[in-house]
């Protein structure tokens, strides 16, 4: 009897520095196993998938993020260069070609983000409350400068948003960063709502254009 298997492609979560590993983690499109595809010192963390264009559902987006968080929480993994949702390769060969072609930039990026995490901060004005936005933004920058490596501005997509930033934070500075956020909450508690999220893979601090020939 001939069994026809669906094409298995590789859904890629990110790139790490290191060798062969396997993780029992739920992935995108119902995957239950993550493993690595290596090229020299680099490894792409992948799971099998039967489509080249996975649906961008809440469930799949969450699975992508959670898989990256699990990778980041592994003590043996110093850093992960995250891929945006939806990066699928037909097979290991084109993926290895990408790792080979981007090897120097990937290695440099892994060194840059080693031992760090991304934290998100949004400050939202309470309904009907007016605040001096510029002064808040400057104050927050000052409070977080000493406990973060870098900050980046994200879009102010709502009139209520006073600040929307991502911070790159050393893992060792997490407690100090949390304390600084608590200080911001105390200072502006009556007029601003604080939304503090993370740790995330450093999406907003990795600026890579990888040419893909799937």
């Amino acid at each position: 009897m001939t069994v026809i298997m669906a094409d298995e492609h590789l859904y890629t979560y990110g790139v790490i520095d290191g060798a062969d590993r396997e993780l029992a983690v739920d992935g995108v499109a119902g995957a239950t196993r993550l493993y690595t595809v290596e090229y020299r010192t680099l490894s792409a963390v992948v799971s099998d998938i039967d489509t080249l264009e996975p649906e961008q559902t809440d469930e799949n987006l969450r699975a992508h993020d959670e898989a990256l968080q699990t990778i980041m929480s592994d003590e043996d993994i110093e850093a992960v260069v995250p891929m945006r949702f939806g990066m699928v390769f037909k097979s290991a060969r084109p993926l290895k070609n990408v790792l080979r072609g981007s090897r120097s930039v990937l290695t440099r990026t892994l060194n840059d983000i080693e031992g760090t995490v991304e934290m998100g901060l949004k400050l939202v004005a309470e309904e009907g409350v007016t605040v001096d936005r510029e002064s808040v933004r400057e104050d927050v920058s000052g409070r977080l400068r000493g406990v973060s490596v870098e900050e980046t501005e994200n879009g102010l997509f709502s009139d209520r948003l006073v600040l929307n930033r991502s911070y790159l934070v050393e893992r060792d500075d997490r407690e100090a960063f949390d304390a600084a956020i608590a200080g911001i909450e105390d200072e502006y508690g009556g007029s601003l709502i604080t939304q503090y999220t993370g740790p995330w893979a450093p999406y907003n601090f990795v600026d890579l254009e990888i040419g893909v020939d799937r």
Partner: protein
Amino acid sequence: MTFLLDDVLIKPWISLVKILRSTAIQEAYDVEAIQDDIKENQLLYEIGERPREEYEQRREELELELEVAENARENLSGRVEVKQ
């Protein structure tokens, strides 16, 4: 001769109609504004200001609006200039 005169008279009107139509398309199918509304809806839900049911209903409406706007831009942008 008549043909030339008509041509001169009509051209500014065509140009004006084009601009008005282009502006109308930008406003009616403002993809970026709808994307911002989707993010705002999510934010208001996350900070507890919008109940789940209202959030989900609004999200469905906005996703539909976005799909219509994206299709419209794709279909109309070849005929009328739409600023991104």
